[in-house]
Protein backbone atom coordinates (compact mmCIF):
# COMPACT_ATOMS: atom_id res chain seq x y z
CA UNK A 1 0.00 0.00 0.00
CA UNK A 2 1.36 3.35 -0.95
CA UNK A 3 0.55 6.34 1.21
CA UNK A 4 2.53 8.65 -0.96
CA UNK A 5 -0.19 10.25 -3.01
CA UNK A 6 -2.41 10.50 0.04
CA UNK A 7 0.34 12.50 1.72
CA UNK A 8 0.37 15.02 -1.13
CA UNK A 9 -3.42 15.09 -1.17
CA UNK A 10 -3.56 15.69 2.58
CA UNK A 11 -1.18 18.61 2.13
CA UNK A 12 -3.50 19.96 -0.57
CA UNK A 13 -6.50 19.63 1.76
CA UNK A 14 -4.66 21.58 4.43
CA UNK A 15 -3.48 24.24 1.98
CA UNK A 16 -7.04 24.75 0.72
CA UNK A 17 -8.37 24.97 4.28
CA UNK A 18 -5.74 27.54 5.28
CA UNK A 19 -6.41 29.57 2.15
CA UNK A 20 -10.09 29.83 3.06
CA UNK A 21 -9.74 30.06 6.85
CA UNK A 22 -9.64 33.89 6.86
CA UNK A 23 -6.98 33.74 9.54
CA UNK A 24 -9.27 31.95 11.98
CA UNK A 25 -8.56 28.74 13.78
CA UNK A 26 -10.03 25.81 11.90
CA UNK A 27 -12.16 23.56 14.09
CA UNK A 28 -13.26 21.05 11.52
CA UNK A 29 -12.58 20.17 7.91
CA UNK A 30 -15.18 18.19 6.02
CA UNK A 31 -13.79 16.28 3.04
CA UNK A 32 -15.77 14.26 0.55
CA UNK A 33 -14.03 11.24 -0.90
CA UNK A 34 -15.74 9.07 -3.46
CA UNK A 35 -15.34 5.33 -3.07
CA UNK A 36 -14.09 5.18 -6.66
CA UNK A 37 -11.55 7.98 -6.25
CA UNK A 38 -8.52 5.76 -5.55
CA UNK A 39 -7.96 7.57 -2.27
CA UNK A 40 -7.79 5.69 1.00
CA UNK A 41 -9.61 7.66 3.73
CA UNK A 42 -7.56 5.90 6.41
CA UNK A 43 -4.36 7.02 4.74
CA UNK A 44 -5.63 10.61 4.70
CA UNK A 45 -6.50 10.33 8.39
CA UNK A 46 -3.06 8.90 9.04
CA UNK A 47 -1.35 11.82 7.32
CA UNK A 48 -3.67 14.56 8.57
CA UNK A 49 -2.45 15.01 12.11
CA UNK A 50 1.19 15.22 11.11
CA UNK A 51 0.47 17.61 8.23
CA UNK A 52 -1.77 19.84 10.38
CA UNK A 53 0.89 20.38 13.02
CA UNK A 54 1.91 24.04 13.45
CA UNK A 55 -0.87 25.22 11.13
CA UNK A 56 -4.28 26.77 11.91
CA UNK A 57 -5.60 23.23 11.54
CA UNK A 58 -3.66 21.79 14.44
CA UNK A 59 -6.08 19.84 16.69
CA UNK A 60 -8.89 20.30 14.19
CA UNK A 61 -11.29 17.49 13.41
CA UNK A 62 -11.09 15.81 10.03
CA UNK A 63 -14.47 14.52 8.92
CA UNK A 64 -14.39 12.32 5.84
CA UNK A 65 -17.66 11.67 4.10
CA UNK A 66 -17.39 8.70 1.78
CA UNK A 67 -19.56 8.91 -1.31
CA UNK A 68 -20.74 5.59 -2.75
CA UNK A 69 -20.05 4.70 -6.37
CA UNK A 70 -22.89 5.00 -8.86
CA UNK A 71 -22.95 4.44 -12.60
CA UNK A 72 -25.39 4.95 -15.43
CA UNK A 73 -25.74 2.11 -17.91
CA UNK A 74 -25.78 3.46 -21.45
CA UNK A 75 -27.50 0.35 -22.73
CA UNK A 76 -30.46 -0.21 -20.40
CA UNK A 77 -30.54 3.38 -19.05
CA UNK A 78 -30.59 2.35 -15.40
CA UNK A 79 -28.40 3.27 -12.48
CA UNK A 80 -26.28 0.68 -10.73
CA UNK A 81 -24.09 0.95 -7.68
CA UNK A 82 -20.37 0.27 -8.05
CA UNK A 83 -17.67 -0.68 -5.58
CA UNK A 84 -14.86 -0.31 -8.14
CA UNK A 85 -14.50 2.03 -11.09
CA UNK A 86 -15.94 -0.49 -13.56
CA UNK A 87 -18.53 -3.21 -13.61
CA UNK A 88 -21.09 -5.08 -15.62
CA UNK A 89 -24.72 -4.07 -15.50
CA UNK A 90 -27.48 -6.62 -14.93
CA UNK A 91 -28.26 -6.23 -18.65
CA UNK A 92 -24.75 -7.50 -19.46
CA UNK A 93 -23.30 -4.20 -20.64
CA UNK A 94 -20.02 -2.77 -19.43
CA UNK A 95 -20.75 0.59 -21.09
CA UNK A 96 -21.05 2.36 -17.77
CA UNK A 97 -20.66 6.01 -17.07
CA UNK A 98 -19.59 6.77 -13.53
CA UNK A 99 -21.91 9.46 -12.19
CA UNK A 100 -20.93 9.42 -8.52
CA UNK A 101 -18.07 8.21 -6.36
CA UNK A 102 -15.10 10.03 -7.87
CA UNK A 103 -15.38 13.06 -5.58
CA UNK A 104 -12.32 14.45 -3.90
CA UNK A 105 -13.17 17.81 -2.44
CA UNK A 106 -12.99 19.98 0.62
CA UNK A 107 -16.70 20.32 1.30
CA UNK A 108 -16.73 22.77 4.18
CA UNK A 109 -14.80 24.29 7.04
CA UNK A 110 -15.84 25.16 10.56
CA UNK A 111 -13.96 28.20 11.74
CA UNK A 112 -13.72 29.52 15.27
CA UNK A 113 -14.93 33.05 15.71
CA UNK A 114 -14.64 34.88 18.99
CA UNK A 115 -17.65 37.12 19.29
CA UNK A 116 -18.79 38.75 22.55
Amino acid at each position, binding site marked *: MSFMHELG*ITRNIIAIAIEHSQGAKV*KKVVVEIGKLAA*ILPDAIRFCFEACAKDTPLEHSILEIREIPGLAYCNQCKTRISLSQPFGICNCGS*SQLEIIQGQEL*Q*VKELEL*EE*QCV
Partner: protein
Amino acid sequence: MCIDCGCSTGANIKISKPESIENQIEKPQTEQQKYSFANAHSHILSDGSVVTHSHKITKDKHSHYNEEVVEQKSLRPTTKIVSLEKNVLTVNDNLALENRNFFRKQNILALNLVSSPGAGKTTLLVRTIKELQTEISFSVIEGDQSTTKDAEKIKATNCDVVQINTDTACHLEAKMIQESLNHLKPKKNSILAIENVGNLVCPALFDLGEYAKVVILSVTEGEDKPIKYPHMFRASSVMILTKIDLLPYLDFDVTSCINYALNVNPKLKVFQVSAVTGEGLKDWFNWLKKSSKI
Protein backbone atom coordinates in the same frame (compact mmCIF):
# COMPACT_ATOMS: atom_id res chain seq x y z
CA MET B 1 -27.56 25.83 13.23
CA CYS B 2 -28.08 29.49 13.91
CA ILE B 3 -29.52 31.15 10.86
CA ASP B 4 -28.09 34.54 11.77
CA CYS B 5 -24.42 33.83 12.19
CA GLY B 6 -24.20 30.29 10.94
CA CYS B 7 -22.90 29.00 14.24
CA SER B 8 -23.46 25.36 14.79
CA THR B 9 -24.66 23.48 17.82
CA GLY B 10 -23.37 20.21 16.43
CA ALA B 11 -22.13 17.48 18.71
CA ASN B 12 -18.48 18.05 17.99
CA ILE B 13 -18.43 21.64 19.05
CA LYS B 14 -17.33 22.40 22.54
CA ILE B 15 -18.78 25.46 24.13
CA SER B 16 -16.49 27.04 26.63
CA LYS B 17 -17.37 29.70 29.10
CA PRO B 18 -14.55 32.11 29.80
CA GLU B 19 -13.89 32.72 33.50
CA SER B 20 -14.18 36.50 33.44
CA ILE B 21 -17.84 36.26 32.55
CA GLU B 22 -18.42 33.67 35.27
CA ASN B 23 -17.39 36.27 37.81
CA GLN B 24 -19.75 38.72 36.27
CA ILE B 25 -22.64 36.33 36.72
CA GLU B 26 -21.83 35.79 40.38
CA LYS B 27 -21.52 39.48 41.05
CA PRO B 28 -23.99 40.58 43.76
CA GLN B 29 -26.70 42.85 42.56
CA THR B 30 -26.99 46.39 43.78
CA GLU B 31 -30.00 47.63 45.69
CA GLN B 32 -31.00 49.58 42.64
CA GLN B 33 -30.99 46.50 40.48
CA LYS B 34 -32.96 44.56 43.04
CA TYR B 35 -35.50 47.28 43.12
CA SER B 36 -35.81 47.80 39.40
CA PHE B 37 -35.88 44.20 38.42
CA ALA B 38 -37.46 42.17 41.13
CA ASN B 39 -36.14 38.62 41.03
CA ALA B 40 -33.64 39.50 38.34
CA HIS B 41 -31.34 36.60 37.71
CA SER B 42 -29.18 35.05 35.08
CA HIS B 43 -29.48 31.91 33.04
CA ILE B 44 -26.87 30.26 30.94
CA LEU B 45 -28.67 29.06 27.87
CA SER B 46 -27.80 25.89 26.02
CA ASP B 47 -26.04 27.89 23.33
CA GLY B 48 -23.71 29.37 25.92
CA SER B 49 -25.15 32.84 26.05
CA VAL B 50 -26.12 34.43 29.35
CA VAL B 51 -29.50 36.02 29.78
CA THR B 52 -30.16 38.24 32.77
CA HIS B 53 -33.80 39.00 33.26
CA SER B 54 -36.57 39.45 35.74
CA HIS B 55 -40.07 38.12 35.93
CA LYS B 56 -43.30 39.76 36.75
CA ILE B 57 -44.59 37.94 39.74
CA THR B 58 -48.26 37.23 40.06
CA LYS B 59 -49.52 35.40 43.09
CA ASP B 60 -46.36 33.44 43.86
CA LYS B 61 -46.15 32.24 40.29
CA HIS B 62 -43.77 33.45 37.80
CA SER B 63 -44.05 33.33 34.10
CA HIS B 64 -41.54 33.72 31.31
CA TYR B 65 -44.10 35.72 29.37
CA ASN B 66 -43.66 39.42 29.57
CA GLU B 67 -40.19 38.95 30.89
CA GLU B 68 -37.84 41.79 30.53
CA VAL B 69 -34.47 40.91 29.18
CA VAL B 70 -31.87 43.11 30.74
CA GLU B 71 -28.80 41.95 28.95
CA GLN B 72 -27.80 39.13 26.71
CA LYS B 73 -24.24 38.30 26.05
CA SER B 74 -22.81 35.75 23.71
CA LEU B 75 -19.83 34.27 25.46
CA ARG B 76 -18.57 31.35 23.55
CA PRO B 77 -16.39 31.33 20.50
CA THR B 78 -18.90 30.85 17.73
CA THR B 79 -18.41 28.61 14.79
CA LYS B 80 -18.63 29.85 11.29
CA ILE B 81 -19.28 27.33 8.57
CA VAL B 82 -17.66 28.02 5.24
CA SER B 83 -18.98 25.99 2.35
CA LEU B 84 -16.19 25.36 -0.15
CA GLU B 85 -16.81 22.34 -2.40
CA LYS B 86 -13.31 22.84 -3.67
CA ASN B 87 -11.64 20.04 -5.60
CA VAL B 88 -8.53 18.92 -3.76
CA LEU B 89 -6.58 18.65 -7.00
CA THR B 90 -7.63 22.08 -8.30
CA VAL B 91 -4.11 23.49 -8.36
CA ASN B 92 -2.79 20.57 -10.39
CA ASP B 93 -5.82 20.56 -12.68
CA ASN B 94 -5.45 24.28 -13.43
CA LEU B 95 -1.78 23.89 -14.30
CA ALA B 96 -2.62 20.85 -16.44
CA LEU B 97 -5.13 22.98 -18.31
CA GLU B 98 -2.43 25.58 -19.00
CA ASN B 99 -0.16 22.82 -20.30
CA ARG B 100 -2.97 21.46 -22.47
CA ASN B 101 -3.63 24.88 -23.98
CA PHE B 102 0.07 25.28 -24.71
CA PHE B 103 0.23 21.88 -26.43
CA ARG B 104 -2.86 22.64 -28.48
CA LYS B 105 -1.50 25.99 -29.59
CA GLN B 106 1.82 24.49 -30.61
CA ASN B 107 0.22 21.40 -32.15
CA ILE B 108 2.19 19.16 -29.83
CA LEU B 109 0.85 15.68 -29.22
CA ALA B 110 1.59 15.11 -25.54
CA LEU B 111 1.36 11.53 -24.32
CA ASN B 112 1.56 10.44 -20.71
CA LEU B 113 3.16 6.98 -20.70
CA VAL B 114 2.29 4.99 -17.59
CA SER B 115 3.07 1.46 -16.47
CA SER B 116 4.48 -0.55 -13.63
CA PRO B 117 8.28 -0.52 -13.38
CA GLY B 118 9.93 -2.71 -16.00
CA ALA B 119 7.03 -2.91 -18.46
CA GLY B 120 9.23 -1.62 -21.26
CA LYS B 121 8.23 2.05 -21.59
CA THR B 122 11.74 3.25 -22.38
CA THR B 123 12.54 0.43 -24.81
CA LEU B 124 9.30 1.06 -26.71
CA LEU B 125 9.94 4.79 -26.70
CA VAL B 126 13.51 4.45 -28.00
CA ARG B 127 12.36 2.18 -30.82
CA THR B 128 9.46 4.51 -31.67
CA ILE B 129 11.73 7.55 -31.82
CA LYS B 130 14.33 5.76 -33.93
CA GLU B 131 11.78 4.63 -36.49
CA LEU B 132 9.74 7.82 -36.75
CA GLN B 133 12.19 10.65 -36.13
CA THR B 134 12.75 11.28 -39.83
CA GLU B 135 9.01 12.03 -40.16
CA ILE B 136 8.10 13.48 -36.77
CA SER B 137 10.05 15.55 -34.27
CA PHE B 138 10.11 14.08 -30.76
CA SER B 139 10.99 15.34 -27.32
CA VAL B 140 10.83 13.44 -24.04
CA ILE B 141 10.30 14.14 -20.36
CA GLU B 142 11.59 11.27 -18.26
CA GLY B 143 10.22 10.76 -14.77
CA ASP B 144 12.00 8.51 -12.30
CA GLN B 145 12.57 8.61 -8.60
CA SER B 146 16.30 8.75 -9.23
CA THR B 147 19.08 8.36 -11.82
CA THR B 148 19.29 9.76 -15.36
CA LYS B 149 19.65 6.32 -16.94
CA ASP B 150 16.46 6.53 -19.00
CA ALA B 151 17.26 10.05 -20.18
CA GLU B 152 20.67 8.82 -21.36
CA LYS B 153 19.01 6.07 -23.41
CA ILE B 154 16.73 8.67 -25.04
CA LYS B 155 19.61 11.10 -25.53
CA ALA B 156 21.44 8.41 -27.52
CA THR B 157 18.75 8.75 -30.21
CA ASN B 158 19.59 12.48 -30.54
CA CYS B 159 16.19 13.37 -29.20
CA ASP B 160 15.77 16.31 -26.78
CA VAL B 161 15.13 15.03 -23.28
CA VAL B 162 14.68 16.33 -19.73
CA GLN B 163 14.90 14.06 -16.70
CA ILE B 164 12.76 14.72 -13.66
CA ASN B 165 13.84 12.92 -10.50
CA THR B 166 10.86 12.90 -8.20
CA ASP B 167 12.80 11.67 -5.16
CA THR B 168 10.11 10.41 -2.77
CA ALA B 169 7.17 11.32 -4.99
CA CYS B 170 5.58 8.45 -6.85
CA HIS B 171 4.16 10.34 -9.82
CA LEU B 172 4.64 13.39 -12.01
CA GLU B 173 2.49 16.48 -11.51
CA ALA B 174 1.47 19.23 -13.92
CA LYS B 175 3.81 21.74 -12.29
CA MET B 176 6.84 19.52 -12.94
CA ILE B 177 5.84 19.33 -16.60
CA GLN B 178 5.44 23.10 -16.82
CA GLU B 179 8.93 23.61 -15.40
CA SER B 180 10.39 20.97 -17.69
CA LEU B 181 8.85 22.63 -20.74
CA ASN B 182 10.88 25.77 -20.02
CA HIS B 183 14.05 23.70 -20.36
CA LEU B 184 12.91 21.39 -23.11
CA LYS B 185 11.27 23.92 -25.44
CA PRO B 186 9.51 21.32 -27.59
CA LYS B 187 9.13 22.19 -31.26
CA LYS B 188 5.82 23.02 -32.91
CA ASN B 189 4.11 20.10 -34.65
CA SER B 190 5.93 17.49 -32.61
CA ILE B 191 5.28 14.64 -30.20
CA LEU B 192 6.11 15.03 -26.54
CA ALA B 193 6.40 11.74 -24.71
CA ILE B 194 6.16 12.04 -20.94
CA GLU B 195 7.43 8.88 -19.31
CA ASN B 196 5.82 8.81 -15.90
CA VAL B 197 7.26 7.16 -12.81
CA GLY B 198 6.74 3.40 -12.96
CA ASN B 199 3.60 3.03 -10.86
CA LEU B 200 0.11 1.86 -11.76
CA VAL B 201 -1.67 3.73 -8.97
CA CYS B 202 -0.89 7.39 -8.35
CA PRO B 203 -0.23 8.70 -11.89
CA ALA B 204 -3.87 7.89 -12.71
CA LEU B 205 -4.98 10.78 -10.50
CA PHE B 206 -2.76 13.52 -11.81
CA ASP B 207 -3.59 15.21 -15.07
CA LEU B 208 -0.47 16.58 -16.74
CA GLY B 209 -2.30 18.26 -19.62
CA GLU B 210 -1.65 15.33 -21.95
CA TYR B 211 -3.72 14.44 -24.98
CA ALA B 212 -3.90 10.84 -23.77
CA LYS B 213 -2.59 8.50 -21.14
CA VAL B 214 -1.02 5.45 -22.72
CA VAL B 215 -0.80 2.49 -20.36
CA ILE B 216 1.89 -0.04 -21.15
CA LEU B 217 1.46 -3.57 -19.91
CA SER B 218 3.98 -6.32 -20.57
CA VAL B 219 3.00 -9.94 -21.03
CA THR B 220 5.40 -10.90 -18.25
CA GLU B 221 3.12 -9.21 -15.71
CA GLY B 222 -0.03 -11.30 -15.67
CA GLU B 223 -3.25 -10.80 -17.60
CA ASP B 224 -5.32 -9.59 -14.65
CA LYS B 225 -3.44 -6.31 -14.20
CA PRO B 226 -6.31 -4.26 -15.72
CA ILE B 227 -8.76 -5.37 -13.04
CA LYS B 228 -6.15 -5.18 -10.28
CA TYR B 229 -5.34 -1.58 -11.15
CA PRO B 230 -8.61 -0.43 -12.72
CA HIS B 231 -8.11 3.30 -12.11
CA MET B 232 -5.14 3.45 -14.43
CA PHE B 233 -6.79 1.44 -17.18
CA ARG B 234 -9.92 3.53 -16.81
CA ALA B 235 -7.97 6.78 -17.05
CA SER B 236 -6.02 5.69 -20.14
CA SER B 237 -7.13 5.99 -23.77
CA VAL B 238 -4.60 3.52 -25.15
CA MET B 239 -3.17 0.24 -23.86
CA ILE B 240 -0.03 -1.20 -25.39
CA LEU B 241 0.64 -4.83 -24.63
CA THR B 242 4.42 -5.17 -24.90
CA LYS B 243 6.99 -7.99 -25.08
CA ILE B 244 4.64 -10.18 -27.13
CA ASP B 245 7.72 -11.93 -28.55
CA LEU B 246 7.91 -13.67 -25.15
CA LEU B 247 4.39 -15.15 -25.36
CA PRO B 248 5.58 -18.64 -26.42
CA TYR B 249 7.47 -18.92 -23.12
CA LEU B 250 4.71 -17.65 -20.87
CA ASP B 251 1.33 -18.70 -19.59
CA PHE B 252 -0.28 -15.41 -20.54
CA ASP B 253 -3.79 -15.33 -21.98
CA VAL B 254 -3.92 -12.35 -24.35
CA THR B 255 -7.66 -12.61 -24.96
CA SER B 256 -8.45 -12.62 -21.23
CA CYS B 257 -6.16 -9.68 -20.69
CA ILE B 258 -7.80 -7.60 -23.40
CA ASN B 259 -11.27 -8.58 -22.17
CA TYR B 260 -10.37 -7.49 -18.66
CA ALA B 261 -9.06 -4.21 -20.01
CA LEU B 262 -12.16 -3.58 -22.09
CA ASN B 263 -14.42 -4.41 -19.15
CA VAL B 264 -12.70 -1.73 -17.15
CA ASN B 265 -12.64 0.70 -20.06
CA PRO B 266 -14.72 -0.17 -23.13
CA LYS B 267 -13.23 2.81 -25.03
CA LEU B 268 -9.64 1.61 -24.67
CA LYS B 269 -7.64 1.35 -27.90
CA VAL B 270 -5.39 -1.72 -27.71
CA PHE B 271 -2.09 -2.44 -29.49
CA GLN B 272 0.02 -5.58 -29.20
CA VAL B 273 3.68 -5.02 -29.89
CA SER B 274 7.21 -6.23 -29.47
CA ALA B 275 9.79 -3.44 -29.37
CA VAL B 276 12.46 -6.11 -29.94
CA THR B 277 11.11 -7.90 -33.03
CA GLY B 278 9.07 -4.94 -34.27
CA GLU B 279 5.86 -6.97 -34.44
CA GLY B 280 2.72 -4.85 -34.22
CA LEU B 281 4.60 -1.56 -34.13
CA LYS B 282 3.16 -0.40 -37.45
CA ASP B 283 -0.34 0.00 -35.97
CA TRP B 284 1.04 1.96 -33.02
CA PHE B 285 3.03 4.22 -35.35
CA ASN B 286 -0.02 4.81 -37.52
CA TRP B 287 -2.03 5.80 -34.47
CA LEU B 288 0.71 8.25 -33.49
CA LYS B 289 0.81 9.81 -36.96
CA LYS B 290 -2.96 10.07 -37.14
CA SER B 291 -3.23 11.58 -33.65
CA SER B 292 -0.44 14.08 -34.21
CA LYS B 293 -2.17 15.37 -37.39
CA ILE B 294 1.16 16.13 -38.98
